[in-house]
């Protein structure tokens, strides 16, 4: 027997946020050129006082929304994937990975999954207890990983708190860089010729710094063990 897919479409004004709650199962939201919120599967839709509420009971929640929509997702388990171009994106999950393709800003929190953000125009916040964090590009970033690695391709101001994983950060402009790592190596790459204020401390590893100290932003790295490298690109 074939089950008919039940799609629910709700017309929305620009800047109407959507909030998605899922007890279990994955969540997939896509920001694309359209003027409605289309729930393709898995969720009950309700127009709340300050946005559209989508409540998933079990199974996969799939929805499409206009470009630039603010999306707030809270779920217990299952991966969360945000595709396309979204506004301020907030995801909290107890377990499961979080993937964000493109957003104005990001706040991603998972207890036991990885976080991958491709492109974040503004601030990118992320934290995971047992997974890694990978950010392709962000205006600024504030990241914490208890036991996984942290990798940021291109960023301005950045703060990283890492437990036992390595940290790799690519800095694009003079800005404050603040990294604390319990164990694991820390590598910061900077544009050639940048002269940041430098404050590099490790208790048991080596320190290599290719750039001279100056006033082009600041780089502060504290590593309890593991080497510190500040390299020019």
């Amino acid at each position, binding site marked *: 027997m074939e089950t008919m897919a039940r799609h629910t479409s709700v017309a929305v004004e620009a800047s109407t946020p959507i909030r998605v709650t899922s007890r279990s199962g994955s969540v997939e939201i896509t920001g694309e050129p359209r003027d409605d919120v289309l729930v393709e599967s898995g969720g009950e839709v309700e127009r709340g006082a300050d946005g559209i509420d989508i409540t998933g009971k079990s199974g996969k929640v799939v929805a499409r929304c206009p470009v630039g929509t603010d999306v707030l997702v809270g779920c217990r388990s299952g991966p969360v994937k945000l595709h396309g171009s979204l506004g301020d994106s907030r995801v*909290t999950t107890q377990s499961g990975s979080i993937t964000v393709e493109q957003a104005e800003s990001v*706040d991603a929190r998972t207890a036991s999954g990885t976080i991958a953000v491709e492109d974040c125009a503004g601030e990118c916040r992320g934290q995971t207890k047992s997974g890694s964090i990978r950010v392709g590009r962000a205006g600024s970033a504030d990241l914490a990983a208890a036991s996984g690695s942290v990798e940021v391709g291109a960023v301005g101001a950045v703060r990283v708190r890492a*437990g036992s994983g390595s940290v790799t950060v690519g800095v694009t402009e003079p800005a404050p860089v603040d990294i604390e790592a319990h164990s694991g190596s820390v590598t910061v790459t900077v544009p050639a010729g940048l002269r940041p204020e430098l404050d590099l401390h490790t208790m048991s590893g080596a320190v290599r710094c290719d750039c001279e100290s100056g006033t082009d932003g600041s780089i502060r790295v504290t590593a309890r063990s593991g080497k510190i490298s500040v390299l020019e690109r």
Partner: protein
Amino acid sequence: MTGDERGASGAVAFTDIVGFTEFTAARGDAEAVALLDRQEQLVRAALPPGARIVKELGDGLLLWLPEATPALRACLDLLDRFAGDTEASALWVRIGMHWGCPTRRGDDLVGHDVNLAARIVDVAGPGELLLSASVRAFLDESTCGLHLDELGPVVMRGIPDPVRLYRAARVREPAG
């Protein structure tokens, strides 16, 4: 416990030191105990009138604060004090706050509101203050000088319904 506190609603907050287990393993019990003592000193110095430390729970503290806006300001002050304190510089502290009417048991506070506050701090990151929508309802946002960034509905272990959480930060004055 104060007389005003009996049967009243107020803010319940948990502090938690991120990475305390690793710190203790690396630095030893004596330094760990010194950090806990320093934490308590900093908390006592930041608490507004009528607030108190209810109890110590491992590396965290349960706090009772009778008014919402002073509670938030005090907790942000507290995070600033931890960040700027040389003796406590190894601490990454986080705070979770909920507004409710917990049940008194002697000097202790118990009940669902306390459990919820404990779950909220689990969601917070190092140096963060998170609060529930129930705290926000009692804030005077026009005068409190705080920015609240909504995190959306958050599903927390053992809590039947998702709770809308906010990340609190000070409003930054424009440069110049």
